[in-house]
């Protein structure tokens, strides 16, 4: 265990988020069980008030998750001198087997919290609480994940001891290494580039189609999600190479360092923002015909699509610009 202020801060946030999650989840269960919009009883009024609390808590959780996600990566980056062999966050996270799961679940929780808030926003615009069940079932899904995140984070930091010999990003994300991350880095450049750009193109086309015609929302949502995954794999496989201008350095974290102008924060922010809005569009699809939302959801969806398109466009532009002007040329 390393008693560093940053580690303390991260653990504190994890604790608070899990605590708030459980609290919100408890009332979510009560709302699911006792909800009766037709009744004007005091119990129902009380529950309706609780929905304000739950949505306030969730928006705090979302912002805490976002901030602590970056703090987590940055801290991992900061800690690397303590470990022999680690050269950036990649090595620090590999110190024990909880590092990467904690990171992944942090990302997942952030995405889910974002989607929840989108659904919540739509629900609040309808006068008869149309999505209340969906919303709180989603919350029940999210709460165990929030708790799991806290547990993983504790397990990770508890198991971190200085002077452990670990692998650095060079060996973790290299062609020689086996394992999932190595496999991702090993993906051949050209097919990945094709996959990446065609994914972006399909998302863009379906997004525009949806924006104009209001149809094929599922297609757009799925393609934006798939494109997100492809984009993450592409960062590992070829995008980062252009930023590092090294043909073998596949680390997704070094992008966040000062040497590269903190460009990573911007890249990942566009990617996360885009995919949250993209998934949100799809999640709202089944409720387009709900009476009180018939005019509201399409408007929200159009805005979400616009967010996704802008975010992905920025990401593609930066990537493309770097690919054209980088000193590195891949064969």
């Amino acid at each position, binding site marked *: 265990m390393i008693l560093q202020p940053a580690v303390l801060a991260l653990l504190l*946030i994890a604790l608070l988020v899990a605590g*708030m999650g459980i609290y919100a989840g408890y009332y979510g269960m009560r709302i699911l069980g006792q909800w009766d919009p037709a009744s004007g009883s005091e119990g129902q009024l009380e529950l309706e008030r609780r929905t304000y609390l739950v949505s306030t*808590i969730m928006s*705090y959780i979302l912002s805490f998750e976002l901030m602590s996600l970056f703090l987590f990566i940055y801290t991992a980056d900061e800690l690397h001198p303590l470990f022999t062999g680690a050269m950036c966050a990649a090595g620090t996270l590999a110190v024990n087997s909880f590092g990467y799961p904690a990171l992944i679940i942090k990302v997942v929780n952030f995405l889910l919290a974002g989607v929840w808030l989108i659904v919540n926003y739509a629900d609040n615009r309808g006068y008869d609480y149309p999505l209340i069940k969906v919303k709180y079932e989603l919350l029940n899904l999210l709460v165990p994940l929030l708790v799991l995140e806290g547990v993983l984070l504790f397990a990770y930091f508890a198991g971190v001891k200085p002077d452990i010999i670990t692998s650095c990003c060079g060996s973790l994300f290299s062609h020689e290494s086996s394992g999932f991350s190595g496999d991702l880095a090993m993906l051949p450049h050209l097919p990945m580039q094709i996959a990446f750009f065609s994914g972006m193109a399909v998302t863009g086309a379906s997004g525009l189609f949806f924006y104009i015609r209001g149809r094929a929302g599922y297609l757009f949502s799925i393609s934006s999600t798939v494109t997100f995954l492809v984009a993450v794999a592409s960062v590992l496989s070829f995008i980062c190479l252009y930023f590092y201008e090294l043909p073998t350095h596949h680390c997704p974290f070094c992008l966040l360092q000062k040497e590269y102008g903190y460009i990573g924060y911007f890249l990942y922010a566009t990617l996360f923002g885009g995919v949250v809005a993209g998934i949100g569009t799809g999640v709202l699809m089944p409720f387009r015909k709900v009476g009180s939302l018939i005019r509201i959801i399409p408007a929200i969806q159009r805005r979400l699509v616009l967010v996704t398109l802008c975010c992905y466009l920025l990401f593609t532009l930066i990537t493309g610009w770097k690919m054209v002007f980088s000193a590195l040329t891949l064969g």
Partner: protein
Amino acid sequence: MKRAIERHLNILEFTLASLLRRKAKNFSLLAMYLMVVFMLASLQFFVTALKREAAIILDDAPDMVVQRLTAGRQDLVPTGHAAEIARIRGVTAVRPRLWGYYYDALNGANYTVMAGDDTSAKTESASIGSGVAKARNLAVGDLLPLIGYDKAPVMVEIGTIFPSGSDLIAADLIIISPANFQRLFNLPGGQATDLAVTVRNPKELATVAAKIAELFPGSRPILKSEIQRTYQSVFDWRGGMTLMILASALLSFIIFAWDKATGLSAEERKEIGILKSIGWETSDVLLLKFWEGIVISLTAFLLGTILAYGHVFFLSAPLFVQALKGWSVIYPRFQLVPVVDAYQLAVLFFLTVVPYTTATIIPCWRAATTDPDAAMRY
């Protein structure tokens, strides 16, 4: 968009008005918050700056220092060892060092006395740190009488006084010639305090250290990396403890904040009732409370950090002086070079603002869900 901004500005307007109306309560809250942030930030700034200073200074430290231990105590090293160590492969130079402590009975100060290796200087001449100069009120050219082992005075003439900017190295130093060092302490012949070893390739340090330990079983080699690490964790011992104490201060502050937020006065409760009755919605009141939290915590955080910066780097951390100084008579002036980065500030933010915000969510919600018709029932 414009409407949303107007709404925020209008509600912020009312927030400020209502905060100012309860000056005593809110300023005491702000002051406590400010104190907590200030202490945490000062400690962070102080320790990080010290670590950086140490890293720079210790870059010039000897590659390795070899001591001799007798019965667990540091003992004098025969200078003969130096020649043998110099023969180890990879060692480029071995320099016996002479240094020790001198207790000044006049003012109760401890000085560190070192034998200089500058042979060109006069034997009577000495260089002293600014702390010594201040403690004894000395100027260049003055004579400083030191009492030798046999009570015979050893007079040295002040040749140089190190500038106060070098206090972190030299505040209590007195550098005199080896001959004077001998007159002062009467070391047995052919002995040194320890040996400073220079090694050609830093990677061989560990091997060389192992060889020395094997060659002279009583010896204790200290590597430069170990010295550096000592200083990287210089305050970890109680620094962690202090953080814990401050954390408990933070905790009690949060309980205080929770209490303030929960224990709405009757007047405040009535006020929120009025707002709700004239058409404010729960989310409007939540926004009001959100802005209240922002105003308090942002002001406290920003001001606290800025004050801490001034305290540590412009005023040389007067609040930490008592803790660090202890019974020292000579105390260096901590003219620390500032070290602050975004990461440090972000961590501070997380440690102070996030818990406060979380602690106020539920009380705020409770206040915001006052019945709108409560105002009609007085």
